[in-house]
């Protein structure tokens, strides 16, 4: 396997319902990534695109093929990846593998989603399709419901009274909005307070509105190139040094592990081992904070804090820039937004720019290693990537 460099990155504004289509958003993000890579579209040999729901959002299948045509490169192989909310990361991981293997020299990974276009009832229905439709959706399971259940289990398993845990969870969302307010591409660029979280409607006990990420329209893209090609194209290389991916069945099948998600522990170990690093070597992470509790579960499974200790760590500021580990300086899914097929690639976008030192007032100074963490469904697809400056 040869070294692979993340060259240019691109990302549209993330927001509620946009006038642009999923194909238009993807093509714009891709063109930005291509331009930043100092290449032309014709230099792209293949496209790997994360997209979960454009069939439902717009009645559009194969957005990857139409985006390739819009970029003037119809004729190259283009694939779509569906791994629920980790679709973009699964696409990026495979894109990496094709370059690392030597089959291609330059590929584009991207993701696009226009989930906000669906409105809340249909979006809630379609997101629930990523749970087990036969054995768990019949009970009326929703994604906030999955994490509501994990929150109640977390509280009991680790002996944290719900009232205390709720304040700690609210701090997760407050942190996300603090950074989102400093990201011009974020869906929510407004700080919130713990009281704002407590004033939200109840979505799925005990999670209230601001414990939950929004539905979002947006797209992101990254160009991966072999080291040899990249040398001529950039003087600020960022390398992919670790990858991991894992899967799991329905929630009931994960009984022995909950509230831990074993798939994440498998995927992240693969990535750490491949990169030859440990959690303490990571300077900045973009992790899958689809719900406030999801942040705690991720921080523990990834090895940043002991099990049951992440809530306290958040409360003490250990997950902010300057703390033990800088978490979601982009604002994360909560404040930046969560266009599900694009999310994993948007995480790569942020980490690449952090490692290049281009993030302005939300910059993690001197960051050398960055990591992405993307969760699809209730553990069905989990992908971790580790990137390194240089």
């Amino acid at each position, binding site marked *: 396997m040869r070294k692979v460099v993340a060259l240019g990155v691109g990302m549209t504004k993330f927001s509620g319902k946009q006038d642009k289509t999923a194909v238009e958003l993807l093509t714009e993000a891709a063109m930005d990534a291509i331009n930043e890579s100092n290449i032309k579209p014709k230099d792209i040999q293949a496209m790997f695109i994360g997209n979960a729901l454009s069939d439902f959002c717009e009645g559009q299948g194969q957005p990857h093929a139409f985006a390739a045509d819009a970029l003037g490169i119809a004729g190259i192989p283009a694939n779509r990846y569906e791994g629920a909310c980790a679709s973009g990361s699964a696409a990026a991981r495979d894109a990496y593998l094709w370059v690392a293997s030597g089959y291609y020299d330059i590929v584009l990974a991207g993701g696009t989603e226009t989930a906000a276009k669906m409105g*809340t*009832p*249909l979006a*809630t*229905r379609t997101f*629930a*399709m990523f749970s*087990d*439709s*036969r*054995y*768990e*959706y*019949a*009970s*009326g*399971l*929703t994604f*906030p*419901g999955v994490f*509501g*259940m*994990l929150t*109640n*289990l977390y*509280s*009991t398993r680790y002996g944290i009274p*719900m009232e205390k845990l709720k304040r700690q969870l609210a701090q997760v969302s407050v942190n996300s909005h603090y950074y989102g307010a400093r990201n011009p591409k974020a869906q929510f660029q407004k700080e919130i307070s713990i009281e704002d979280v407590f004033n939200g*409607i*109840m*979505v*799925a*006990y005990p999670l209230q509105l601001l414990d939950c990420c929004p539905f979002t329209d947006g797209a992101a893209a990254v160009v991966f190139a072999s080291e040899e090609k990249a040398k001529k194209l950039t003087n600020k290389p960022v390398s992919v040094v670790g990858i991991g991916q894992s899967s799991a*069945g*329905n*929630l*009931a*099948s994960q*009984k022995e592990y*909950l509230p831990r998600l074993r798939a994440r522990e498998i995927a992240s170990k693969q990535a750490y081992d491949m990169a030859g690093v440990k959690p303490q070597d990571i300077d900045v992470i973009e992790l899958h904070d689809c719900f406030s509790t999801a942040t705690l579960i991720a921080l523990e499974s990834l090895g940043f804090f002991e099990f049951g200790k992440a809530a306290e760590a958040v409360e003490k500021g250990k997950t902010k820039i300057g703390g033990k580990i800088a978490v979601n300086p982009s604002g994360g899914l909560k404040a930046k937004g969560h266009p599900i097929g694009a999310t994993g690639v948007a995480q790569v976008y942020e980490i690449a720019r952090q490692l290049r030192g281009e993030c302005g007032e939300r910059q993690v100074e001197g960051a050398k290693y960055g990591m992405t963490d993307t969760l699809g469904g209730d553990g069905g697809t989990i992908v971790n990537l580790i990137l390194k400056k240089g």
Partner: protein
Amino acid sequence: MEFKLTFKEYNEALKQNKLLGLKCSCGRVSSSPRMVCPACGSTDLQVVELKGKGKIMTFTSIFVVPEGREPECPYVIALVDLDEGAAIMGNLSSVDPNKVSTDLIGKKVKMSGNAVFAGDKYSAGEIARPLFSLES
């Protein structure tokens, strides 16, 4: 190789208040049908009827529902740890969704019946799920 227990067979039995599962020759019991035992890798699985008794592993009350489920809102979902060792998801029918707390976790429940999701244009037909009630 065919499934020993299919969704259709499981679903039809559940509509008759019979909760089917699979028991492997190694002793592992699974609730939803599968081809291979997750514990030992064997395909030597037998269809068994589960008693529908267990403890609440975790739960939630749903207040924002998917399109098509509006008439059911709000409702309580429980993940139940069955006495046979498998977990299963169902609704908790004897608890007010507005008055839940983590005190529910660990409480004994039994299957009191089933409810059928009539299906929507995405679901390819009716799907039953177990209803549980607290044991007094």
